């Protein structure tokens, strides 16, 4: 009974070690496109590079939701933790752990759960309005650059209206 429990904990222990080890070296971009910034702050930084889905980075350190990373081209910068994952994307089930070519997310997900294939079948059986969803996604008006965002905040005089402890 007790030994059984210890064994379980041992398994968790080994598993945790695996995650920590994997997480401390390389991370992959898990979104379509991710910005790399000069500082761990949206307002006080410049975009130094952009990475595509599947590209790998080396983590140097972390700070409040940001990772300092080294890019494949040896540049360094800061990325939001929400853009990265410890997962590696495999090409084929049971195949070798070949890295997916950057930007090739459909291939990475083929057959692995909720993918374009599933959506295709789903659309045949349901009365839905995908036309506008595609439009929202593709509309160039919706692609807002960081420069436009900053200008928007400055033009709108969006300044901190109070200070902490300012009673």
């Amino acid at each position, binding site marked *: 009974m*007790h*030994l059984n429990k*210890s064994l379980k*904990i*041992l398994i968790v*222990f080994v598993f*945790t*070690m695996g995650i*920590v080890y994997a997480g*401390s070296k390389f991370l992959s971009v*898990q*979104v*379509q496109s991710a910005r790399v910034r000069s500082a761990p702050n*949206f307002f006080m930084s410049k975009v130094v590079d952009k990475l595509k889905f599947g590209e790998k980075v080396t983590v140097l350190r*972390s700070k409040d*939701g940001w990772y300092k990373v080294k890019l494949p081209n040896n540049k360094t910068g800061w990325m*939001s*933790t*929400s*853009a990265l994952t410890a*997962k590696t994307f*495999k090409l*084929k*089930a049971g195949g070798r752990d070949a890295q997916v070519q950057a930007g090739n997310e459909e291939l990475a*997900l*083929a*057959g*692995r*759960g*909720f*993918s*374009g*294939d*599933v*959506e295709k*079948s*789903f659309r045949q*059986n*349901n*009365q*839905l*309005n995908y036309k*506008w*969803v595609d439009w*929202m*996604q593709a509309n160039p*008006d*919706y692609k*807002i650059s*960081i420069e436009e*965002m900053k200008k*928007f*905040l400055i*033009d*709108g005089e969006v*300044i*901190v*209206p109070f200070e902490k*402890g*300012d009673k």
Partner: protein
Amino acid sequence: MKNIKSKQILKFCLLGIIALMLLSINVKSMDWGNVLNQVSKAVKTGTKIKKAMDVANLTPLQEHYIGRAVAANILAKYKPYYNQKADRYLNILGQTLAQASDRPNTYMGYRFLILDSDEINSFATPGGFIFITKGMIRCCNSEDSLAAVLAHEIAHVQWKHGLRSIRTKRLVSVGAVLLGEVAVKSGSGDFKNVLKAFNGSVNDISNKLINSKYSRATEVVADQTAVTILTRVGYNPQGFIDLLKTMQEKFRHDRHGFYKTHPAPKSRIRVVKQCLRGYTIKEINNNNARNQRFKANLAGI
């Protein structure tokens, strides 16, 4: 004898785990709160931590496909209101707020669209398709109030509240496929099970957003996170309180949308004020630059 030995193993393992936890904080500091939350939740409910399939493990790309389907569902029930000027304004404001959230990156980024409905309502699907009705826009008297509506919806996306309303049992049987451990062939029996799980998940979320509601605790978290986002960017949280007061007034005659799906404005005002204790809040200036553009861009709505 056997007992002592196993106790020693246990001790060793626990020490090891604690050491590793400390080590990993450096690398995974962001996920940590979430992990602790899950552990404490598991302890509270007496369930085991080994949970095979947590919706939070879905990749952003899978979340994106669910979000697209839920959005397609919403757009089959609510007509979009397209106005290029208003739309672009809404997207600059919303995407700027999203950048300041703790989840600036969803798979494709955040997108905002106005719905042609008088109902006071707004929705956020997984992955960041966010909708706001004309009725809700009319509850806003300033850009600061509109920012509060959008920040609240961004918070739901950040915390994956939509995904978390999927019934776990739907995903368990296809867990290995969703986690990417095995692949299925299009058209096979396993594929049909994945399709069924997808269908069920989309229904769960759509029902939650349109007909039912999140728990009160979930809405409190969304409001608290909204205040964080607003103050981080520099919006005046008084706009949030003004918005809730207007909603409260309108709910006397209009009992659709947020009246049914969200806690009463009165209790939400309490939550917002609690977050702002120790701060001095200024009144909204209706004639400053951002409120002039607010009126100009949303004229006619």
